[in-house]
């Protein structure tokens, strides 16, 4: 539990034990004065002993409490008052019984506590293992996705530098264009990685604020257009005004990743559909392309950063690797879900964000001020 020193722990246990016993004594004394019934007094001390065992660490306090209880009952509440007498008829048995009951309860509670501790420890280990796995997946995807464009940039620039004399203008332009493309891609990757640093390490959560759906979606689309001006997107958002709790920068990143993914992997130039809708509990986003779809075998592991099918040459650097695994990390941190599926004409990526407690639901009529 806590990292108390043994001395401090002993002190704490002693104080708790004394407190319960004192309380029991006070109440029992009152009771005894009013009703003169020893049975109630015994029950009160029993209660105090059980509570002591529950609230302290180790076996000792519980047993100590039971011994003190027995002595106190004998001393204060049985004839002759204010003196110990172990020769009373039947009383030794009562005392023994109480001692045993207290001992057993304190043993049980102590045992239970220990088990709880073990369980908690195991949970923590499991969570850490999960985090470690996520990190490893991400690293694997990162090293792959970053190395390929870098290789291509270095290749292009060095061949430009070494062969300046023999290259014609068109070749030079092609090389520079390749460098430009890959540098942009790298930047995109780095932005993706940076966005993950916004997710808190401790809680694996994000700081959300209420953001209007109708602002976030168009903002993402316009940033996407800046990068890929030729790609077409059809946007559909609900008519009513909806605020969704989110880290808008991160959700923007997810939308951009999914849109780019659709451009690079659909194998089609048909407009991409981006649709947002609201159910009772969630905001649901769909990104649909009208291309070749996704190999059903890969659907499962798509978001694990492990998306390279054996047939695919490993230099097809616009891999879905980091992008999708970051999407998953972001959506999970928002307590939402993300998945991919095929529809009749292509692939569809869907993610949900829980709405939480809605404050402004649909206040779209004009007010006068």
């Amino acid at each position, binding site marked *: 539990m806590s990292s108390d020193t043994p001395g401090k722990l002993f002190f704490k246990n002693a104080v708790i034990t004394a407190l319960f016993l004192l309380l029991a004594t006070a109440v029992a004394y009152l009771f005894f004065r009013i009703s003169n019934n020893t049975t109630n007094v015994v029950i009160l001390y029993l209660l105090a002993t059980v509570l002591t065992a529950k609230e302290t660490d180790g076996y000792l306090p519980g047993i100590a409490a039971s011994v003190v209880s027995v002595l106190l009952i004998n001393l204060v509440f049985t004839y002759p008052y204010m003196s110990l007498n172990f020769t009373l008829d039947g009383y030794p048995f009562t005392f023994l019984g109480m001692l045993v009951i207290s001992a057993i309860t304190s043993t049980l509670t102590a045992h239970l506590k220990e088990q709880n501790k073990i369980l908690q420890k195991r949970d923590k280990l499991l969570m850490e293992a999960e985090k470690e796995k996520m990190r490893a997946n991400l690293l694997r995807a990162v090293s792959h996705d970053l190395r390929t464009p870098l290789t291509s940039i270095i290749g292009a620039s060095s061949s430009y530098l070494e062969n300046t004399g023999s290259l014609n203008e068109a070749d030079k332009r092609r090389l520079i264009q390749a460098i430009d493309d890959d540098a942009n891609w790298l930047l995109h990757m780095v*932005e993706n990685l*940076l966005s993950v640093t916004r997710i808190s390490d401790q809680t694996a959560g994000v700081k959300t604020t209420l953001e*209007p759906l*109708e602002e976030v979606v*168009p903002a993402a689309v316009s940033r996407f257009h800046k990068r890929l001006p030729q790609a077409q997107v059809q946007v559909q958002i609900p008519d009513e005004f909806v*605020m969704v709790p989110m880290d808008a*920068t991160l959700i923007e990143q997810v939308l951009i990743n999914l849109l780019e993914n659709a451009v690079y992997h659909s194998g089609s130039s048909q407009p991409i559909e981006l649709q947002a809708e609201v159910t009772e509990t969630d905001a649901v986003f769909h990104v649909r392309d009208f291309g070749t779809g996704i190999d059903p075998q890969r659907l499962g592991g798509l978001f694990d950063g492990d998306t390279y099918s054996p047939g695919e040459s490993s230099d097809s650097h616009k891999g879905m690797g980091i992008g999708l695994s970051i999407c998953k990390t972001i959506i999970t941190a928002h307590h939402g879900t993300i998945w991919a599926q095929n529809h009749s004409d292509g692939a569809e990526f869907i993610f949900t964000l829980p709405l939480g407690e809605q404050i402004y639901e649909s*206040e*779209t009529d004009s007010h006068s001020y």
Partner: protein
Amino acid sequence: MNRKLTAILIEDEVNISSLIATILTGESYKVLTAHTGKEGLSLITSQCPDIILLDLGLPDMDGLQIIRKVREFSRIPILVISARTQEEEKVQALDCGADDYITKPFGTSELLARIRTALRHSQRSSASESVYRCGQLTIDFEKRLITRGGEEIHLTQIEYKLVSLLARQAGKVLTYDYLMRQIWGPYSDDNNQILRVNMAHIRRKLEKNPAEPEYIFTEIGVGYRMKEET
């Protein structure tokens, strides 16, 4: 332009600094570069530039401090250069008195456009024009009349105030905080939902398709920017 405009560039990364300097010199600006905040401040006080380009992450001092110091004695437009993920920093810079920001990495045309916008706003000052025109949208500030494609658009009092505020500083991003203070007063709530709701109403009235806005854009986490006049 009969005289060269002077720009002071405060940026600690040499590569980026020389890149921007090359671009601006090519557009016939006179560019002075500083690599530290101190150097930059002394350049500003001695040269009185037309515009300041400022990177917030400087080795010797906080960029925000430079903005505050400059604002103590001058209205020289300041264009902040920042990285994308730090929107809080952008907001702080704008609220300190920076005129606009540009996000790294930027294209040449974007940089030049932002500089032109900032310069225009500083020159126009209070004697601003009485009409805003952009695409099909016209705002007549004197008559308080907004039309799109000749058709009048009816806005409530607050909606009109918001739109005219954005339009008078078109091309420039206005932060949530600034808008809240301008419309609802200095003691307005920290919560900007009322602003968001009003912007939603405006969007529905002004834009043909609120999902693909043409006139008022959202800068995520920062504020709103109205399209420049065309």
